């Protein structure tokens, strides 16, 4: 009897573990199936996307649109199409891992996966803000440059670069805010940097333009008073 109890005591943990494993095994199998299927799918998508982007001359298009320059400025020297392919591939791999992990039905992991999927739209919108913002900054900077050059301003290039810098600071702040990366610090830093630049420009142009502004105001006032005289005579 004692021996029986002792054996039960010894075997019970094994039984429990085995029962747990029996409960967990289908989930594990599901996860592995999802992972293998997902990786195969990611590889197929990678091959197809690579071919499609090559056929569409995506690299040359990126060169003309300025996306390649953006990558190079960040010291990224892979081809734009290859970069897109890699991003999509690793996104699919991470996506697959997250789905696979959720198949395990572990509470802590499920919470993590849920957080990941909740954060995904933010990442997408931050990327969208960066891409559209970069193109818009380039376009506006170029517009300013052409307008100032046509008006004969000496510092057209400097001003155009200043506009681009301001817009890029704005875009980066927006993207970081979207990603919720220390939002308070980002907003404060942005306010300080942006405000500082604007005040610096205001002081620079204001102090330098006192004489010009005085002349414009005096000229306007003189014209106004001349106009009054005309009316009185009439």
């Amino acid at each position, binding site marked *: 009897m004692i021996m029986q109890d002792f054996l039960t005591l010894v075997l019970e943990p094994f039984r429990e573990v085995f029962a747990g494993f029996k409960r967990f095994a289908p989930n594990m199998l599901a996860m592995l199936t999802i992972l293998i299927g997902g990786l195969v799918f990611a590889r197929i998508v990678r091959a197809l996307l690579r071919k499609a982007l090559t056929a569409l*001359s995506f*690299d*040359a298009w990126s*060169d*003309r649109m*300025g996306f*390649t*320059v953006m990558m*190079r*400025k960040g*010291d990224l*020297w892979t*081809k734009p199409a290859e970069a897109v392919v890699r991003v999509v591939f690793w996104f699919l791999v991470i996506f697959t891992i997250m789905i696979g992990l959720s198949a395990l039905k572990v509470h802590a992991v499920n919470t993590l996966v849920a957080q990941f999927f909740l954060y995904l739209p933010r990442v997408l919108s931050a990327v969208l803000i960066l891409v559209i913002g970069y193109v818009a900054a380039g376009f506006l900077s170029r517009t300013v440059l052409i307008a100032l050059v046509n008006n004969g301003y000496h510092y057209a290039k400097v001003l155009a670069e200043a506009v681009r810098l301001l817009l890029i600071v704005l875009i980066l702040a927006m993207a970081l805010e979207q990603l919720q990366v220390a939002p308070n610090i980002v907003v404060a830093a942005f306010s300080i940097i942006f405000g500082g630049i604007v005040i610096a420009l205001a002081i620079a142009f204001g102090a330098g333009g006192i004489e010009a502004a005085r002349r414009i105001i005096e000229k306007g006032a003189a014209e106004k008073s001349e106009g009054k005289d005309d009316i009185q005579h009439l």
Partner: protein
Amino acid sequence: MSDFYQTGVITTLHRLGKPSLERIEGELLHFSRTRPVALVLPALYSEFEGPAMPKIVEELSKVKYLCEIVLVLDKASDKEFQKVREFMAPIPGDVKIIHNDGRRVMEIYDTFKRNGLSVGERGKGRSAWLAYGYVIANGKCDVIALHDCDIVNYSREMLARLCYPVANPNLDYVFCKGFYSRVTNKMHGRVTRLLVTPLIRSLQSLGGEHRFLKFIDSFRYPLAGEFAMSTDMARVNRIPWDWGLEVGSLAEVYRNYSPRRICQVDIADTYEHKHQVLSSEDPEKGLMKMTIDICKSIFRTLASEGIVFSDGFFKSLSVAYLRLAEDTIMKYEADAAINGLEFDRHEEAKAVESFARAIAMAAETFMKNPMGTPLIPNWNRVTSAIPGILDMLKKAVDEDNR
């Protein structure tokens, strides 16, 4: 000391008396405030293992008026690139090395290719062209000077005299080519002496006076690799990537600028660099390859100027060239005799025969494909096709040199 006779349609700046290097460098330092000068050095790694480069680096380390030096390194591994950086370290100021075989620069070449811009095969032409792009991207210099890296008897006076006419704002030259005599114990420079000049003059005698032929004939050493030019010229000129580089570049200068703004300058009493073998049996190597490329370049330029070539013309040209070149050999024999130089008349005659064959080969190639142009597009066209390319090039070079 040379005479002061002005030849042809361009200006010739002679070496008269004993010009002071200190004075010319002092003036260049003054000019460089308004017209900063960049020096472009196309080099192979093997040249750093030869005798010329240590002397060049030693001399350049004493030059104060250069705004930047851009060395384009070809055929070098990453390790060799680092060695070259250390080798160039004694030169003060802004020295950038473009690593042609580096990952970043290779990607730049790939960017040209995928956008339909053919920049040709590796060589001095392509290297020089890329260096101009970097100078333009940097936007610091108004003048670009270029010389080879195999000059054994290099002195910084060569560079100073080369830069002076373009850097001096009072002279208003946009292009200045160096000239010198290539004499040791015998005369060198066979391609210039026995091919280019007799060929140009034969073409003139057959086809009559032509402005381009007159222009090329005005240069005392049209194949000299040393020149200075305005940075604007580097934007608009196309560059051949083959051996027709020097003649093709002169054709572009002729096309884009008035001869009044072009000059040549006596940069050295003598000039010594590596000599090419004739390789008369193999048209793909040595002087034969160079000769064919030069002839093709001249024929193409003349065709673009409206000269009509035919088989009969080329047959007459071969005969006219042969006669003129043989007469030229006699002149050089006399010149060598009075100066006590060695002169192998048989070798010279063999070279002329090989050059005659090369002219025939070039003519045949030209007749088959007159449009086959090995010119690299100018930077204005490149930036129009790929707006951000200069930024990319600058980033690639700056990162490599970090």
